[in-house]
C-alpha cells in the first residue's frame, strides 16, 4: 500500500517564452540621475546591440512568481522527505545556514575589498580551514575549488607537482600512471586525465574491496604517481586494509588521494590523515549540508599533508605576523591578523578567480558550529545506523551482493527481480509512485543493476519503515505484476521520456515558432 503520498492536481505551465506578451514589464528602476550623453557618442554605433534582445521574455513580476512557483511543484526535494541517492549525501539543509549566508556584511562584500576591510570574511575561511583540518587529520587546506571534481583536479595536480619537485622533471615523466579502482566515480579518471595521467584500473575483490594483489602488481613497474581511492568505497564498505594500501603505494613512490565523497561515514569517527592518506577533497555540499540547489553550487576543499602544503593553490589565507606602516599619514595602522599570501613558488597556481564558493563556506562553518564536537559524531552514527537498518531490512527481498556490513550506504541489485523482467530502472521508477526519490542506480558500474541507497541521518524511523515497506511491496509487484514496474511511474505529470531521440536530435533551446517549423522540415 502506498502510504507516503497521494495524488493531487499539478499545475500546467508553459515555457516563459511561450507566456511572453509584448509590453509586459517586471522591473522598476530609479530615473537616470546624471546628464545623459547621446549613446552614439559614448559607444560607437558598430559596437551597439541592434537586435533589441529579441526573443527574451516580456512578463510581469506576477507572471514570474507564478511561473517558477508552478514549475517548482514538479520537483522532489529533501524538504519533502527521504532522498536516498547513494554517494550524494542528501541531508537536511538548515535554514539557519541560509540566513547566515545572507548577512549583509558577507553577502555585500566585494572579493577585491582590501584585506584590512574584510577581516571578518577571512576569519570565516581561516576558522573553517582549521575545523576541516581537524576533521580530516590533514593540516594543509585550500577552500578554492568550487566542487568535488574541481577539488579532485586540484589534489591530483598537487600530487603531480610534488613528484615533479621530488624526482626532477625527467624522472618524474616516467611516473604518469594513476591507479583508480573500478568502482570509482567517473570524475576520478576524468580529473586524472586533466592532470596528464594515464589511468590504470584496479580490480575489486569478490568481497567488494580493493584487490591488494592487483595493486601490488600494478605498483611493481615504477610508473605509479598515485592512487585515487574512495573510503568508504562506493559500495559503502570501509577499505579495512587502507593502511596497507597506503604503504604499498608509498613504497612504490606514489601518493594516495582520497575522494571524500563518503566522509559522512567518518566525521568524528576516523580521519583520513591517520590512515596514511596524503590528500583528499571534501564536498561541503554533501557532508557539510550546503544545499545542492538542483545541481550546485558545491564546494570542494582540498586538504593535504604538511609535505604537500607548498603546492596548494594560491592565494592562501594566512595569519599576519608583522604590523605594517602607513608612511604617508605617519601613524601605525593596526593591521588585521589575516592576509592573502601569494608567495608559494611551488603552488600549482590558481584554480578559480577570487577565493572559491565563499557562500558555501559560511554555510559549512555554521553546520559545524551548530553540531559541535558531539553533534558531528552523532550525525555520523545516525547516518550509519540508518543505512544499516535499511540493509538489514531489505536483504530478505533484494540481492545484496556483498556480505559485509555497510557504513553509510548500502548496495543492492535487481538480480531477483530481473528474472521476471523488472530491472533496476523499473524499480527506481516505481519507487516514485510510492512517494520517494529513487536511490542512485547503475552505480557503481561493477555491480550489475546496482541500487545504491544512502538515507543519511536526516530521516526518521517512521519514514525509513515506509521506504522499506515500499521496497518490499515493489519486490512483490515485480513477481506478481512486473508490468506495473515497467510502465512506472504512473502518478507523475509526465511518464518516462524518450531520451534516445532527445540525444539523437537534440533541441537544447527554445526558438520562436516559425524557426521551429523550418527546423522540423529541414
Amino acid at each position, binding site marked *: 500500500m502506498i502510504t507516503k503520498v497521494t495524488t493531487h492536481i499539478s499545475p500546467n505551465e508553459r515555457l516563459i517564452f511561450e507566456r511572453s506578451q509584448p509590453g509586459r514589464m517586471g522591473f522598476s528602476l530609479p530615473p537616470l540621475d546624471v546628464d545623459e550623453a547621446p549613446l552614439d557618442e559614448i559607444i560607437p554605433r558598430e559596437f551597439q546591440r541592434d537586435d533589441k534582445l529579441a526573443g527574451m521574455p516580456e512578463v510581469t513580476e506576477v507572471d514570474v512568481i507564478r511561473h517558477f512557483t508552478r514549475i517548482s511543484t514538479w*520537483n522532489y526535494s529533501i524538504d519533502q522527505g527521504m532522498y536516498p541517492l547513494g554517494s550524494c549525501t542528501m541531508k537536511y539543509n*538548515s535554514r539557519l545556514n541560509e540566513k547566515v549566508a545572507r548577512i549583509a556584511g*558577507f553577502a555585500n562584500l566585494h572579493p577585491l575589498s582590501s584585506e584590512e576591510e574584510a577581516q571578518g570574511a577571512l576569519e570565516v575561511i581561516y576558522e573553517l580551514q582549521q575545523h576541516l583540518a581537524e576533521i580530516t587529520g590533514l593540516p594543509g587546506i585550500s577552500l578554492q575549488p568550487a566542487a568535488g571534481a574541481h577539488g579532485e583536479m586540484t589534489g591530483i595536480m598537487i600530487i603531480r607537482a610534488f613528484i615533479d619537485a621530488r624526482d626532477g622533471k625527467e624522472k618524474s615523466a616516467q611516473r604518469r600512471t594513476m591507479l583508480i579502482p573500478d568502482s570509482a566515480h567517473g570524475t576520478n579518471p576524468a580529473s586524472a*586525465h586533466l592532470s596528464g595521467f594515464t589511468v590504470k584500473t584496479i580490480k575489486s575483490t569478490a568481497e567488494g574491496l580493493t584487490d591488494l594483489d592487483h595493486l601490488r602488481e600494478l605498483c611493481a613497474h615504477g610508473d605509479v604517481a598515485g592512487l585515487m581511492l574512495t573510503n568508504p568505497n562506493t559500495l559503502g564498505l570501509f577499505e579495512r586494509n587502507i593502511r596497507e594500501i597506503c604503504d604499498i603505494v608509498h613504497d612504490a613512490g606514489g601518493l594516495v588521494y582520497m575522494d571524500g565523497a563518503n566522509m559522512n561515514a567518518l566525521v568524528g569517527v576516523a580521519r583520513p590523515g591517520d590512515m596514511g592518506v596524503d590528500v583528499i577533497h571534501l564536498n561541503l555540499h554533501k557532508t557539510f549540508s550546503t544545499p545542492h540547489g538542483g*545541481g550546485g*553550487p558545491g564546494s570542494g576543499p582540498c586538504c593535504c599533508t604538511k609535505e604537500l602544503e607548498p603546492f596548494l593553490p594560491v592565494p592562501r589565507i594566512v595569519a599576519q605576523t608583522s604590523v605594517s606602516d602607513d608612511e604617508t599619514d605617519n601613524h601605525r595602522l593596526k593591521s588585521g591578523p589575516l592576509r592573502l599570501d601569494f608567495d608559494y613558488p611551488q603552488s600549482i597556481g590558481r584554480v578559480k578567480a577570487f577565493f572559491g564558493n565563499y557562500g558555501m563556506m559560511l554555510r559549512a562553518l555554521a553546520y559545524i558550529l551548530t553540531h559541535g564536537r558531539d553533534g558531528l559524531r552523532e550525525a555520523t552514527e545516525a547516518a*550509519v545506523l540508518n543505512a544499516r537498518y535499511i540493509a538489514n531490512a531489505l536483504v530478505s527481498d533484494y540481492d545484496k551482493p556483498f556480505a559485509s556490513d555497510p*557504513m553509510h550506504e548500502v548496495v543492492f541489485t535487481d538480480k531477483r527481480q530481473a528474472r521476471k523482467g523488472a530491472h533496476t530502472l523499473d524499480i527506481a521508477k516505481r519507487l516514485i509512485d510510492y512517494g520517494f526519490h529513487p536511490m542512485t542506480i547503475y552505480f557503481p558500474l561493477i555491480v550489475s543493476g546496482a541500487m545504491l541507497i544512502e538515507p543519511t541521518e536526516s530521516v526518521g524511523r517512521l519514514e525509513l519503515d515506509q521506504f522499506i515497506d515500499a521496497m518490499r511491496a515493489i519486490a512483490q509487484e515485480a513477481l506478481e505484476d512486473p508490468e506495473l514496474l515497467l510502465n512506472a511511474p504512473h502518478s507523475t505529470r509526465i511518464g518516462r521520456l524518450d531520451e534516445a531521440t532527445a540525444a539523437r536530435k537534440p533541441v537544447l533551446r527554445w526558438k520562436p515558432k516559425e524557426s521551429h517549423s523550418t527546423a522540423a522540415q529541414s
Partner: protein
Amino acid sequence: MRYIPNSPDERAEMLQQIGVSSMENLFDSIPADLRLRRSLNVPDALSELELLKKFDTTATRNPAANRISFLGAGAYAHYVPTIVDHLISRSEFFTSYTPYQPEISQGTLQAIFEFQTLVCQLTGMDIANASMYDGSTAMAEAVLMAERVTRRTKVLASSAIHPEYLDVAHTYVQHAGIELQHCAYSPEAGTTSHDLSNLDEKTAALVIQSPNFFGCIEDVQALADKAHAVGALLIVVVTEAMSFGLLKSPGACGADIVVAEGQSFGVPLSFGGPYVGLFATREKYARQIPGRLVGEAFDTKGRRGFVLTLATREQHIRREKATSNICTNEGLIALASTVYLETMGPRGIEAVATQCAQKAHYAARKVSEIEGFSLPFSAPFFNEFVVRAPADASTLLKKLANEKGIDGGIALARYDANRPNDFLVCVTETNTREQIDNLIDGLKYLTTKTQRHEAA
C-alpha cells in the same frame, strides 16, 4: 541534535533490532587503531541564538561591505529584485539534487532549459550548457575545448583579460599539452593589439575579453576575422554580463565560443562566490561542449518534458575520455540568473545596461576634469574605466576609504607593478550621482591635501 529526527531511544531500539550492541560497534569494519579515540577538537555546539550572534559580530569586521563602492573587475554590485531570492529559496529548488530522475525534476529541468535559451539569446550563440563554476573556469574549459575541436595546441590569450582568469587558464592547461601564449594590448588604446604576429596555422584559438579587464570594448569582429583567417577559433570572455544589454553580441561578431561570468544577473557579491559560468557555442560543436545539457523530450503520450542529454560527453559515462571532469555545476545560481533575466526582460536589461554606461561615462568625464587625473586608454568602454592618478593609487584609495568611506576602485598595482598610479573604476545602476560626485570631491580633496602637505 535538532537536525537528527531519531531520538536517542529510537536509535537504541534500532540498534537492538539490527543486532548491534552499541554505536561503537557500528564501526567495527574500521580497524580499531584507525578510529579516533577522542572527541574532535571542535567547539561545543552553539544554539541558533549564539550562532547568529557570532556571525553577526564577525560580519561587522567587514566594513568594506557597507562602503559606497566602485569596485568591479569580475564582480559587480547590481540591484537584485526581491523575488529572485524568494524564488530560489523555495524548498523544491534549493533542496533538490541534480535532475537525474526527470519525472520528478521537471521544475529544475525546465528552468535550466530556459537558462540555456537566455544565454543563447544574450550571447548570440546557438547552444549553451547548464552552467560552469564561474567565468574563470568557463574560460579555461573553452581553451581545452578549442584544442579538441581544432586538434591544434597553441592558444593565444590577450593580456587584457582579467589576470585571475589567465592564472586559472594556465593552471588548467599546464598538463594538457597546450601552449598558452599571451598577446599584447595597446598601451594607448587599452585594447588587444591587432598586430598578432604569433597568430598562425598552429593556433587553436584566440582568446579575448570584451569589455576587457580595463573596461575597454574590443573590436570583436576584426579579431574574429583574424582568427578565422588562420583557421583558429575566437573565444570571447565577458566578465560584466550586463554589457550584453547594450553591446553587440559576440555571436553576431563571429565568436565561436562565448564564456561569461553571470554574477551580474541577480547574484550577490558574497566575497567572490558562488557565481555562475555561462558557456555558449555553435551548434556544430554540441558534442564537444563541457558540462551538462538539458534537451527537450517527449513521453509515450506525446507530452513535452526536459531531460539531461548528450551525456555520452560526460565523466560518468566517458570517464577519462570525457569532455570535462565537471559534475556538480552552479544550478541554483543559474536559477537566480534565470529568474533575474525573466523579471527584467529585454527592456529591463537594456535599461540597466544603459544606466551603467551613462553613469560610468559621467564619472569618467568628471574624473578626467580633476587636475592631475587622466584616462590613459582611448578605446570606448562600457561601465569600467582606468584612471591615472597623479600619485600612488593604492595609497590614494586607502585614504579615500578611511577618510571618505568610499571604495573608489581597484589599484591595478595589485596585478601589474608597472601601473602604480592606475586604478580601475566601475559604475553600476546602484551608484547614484551623489555618490559619484562624492567620489570626485574625495579624489580632489585628497590630492590637493597631499599637495599642500608636500608643499608645507
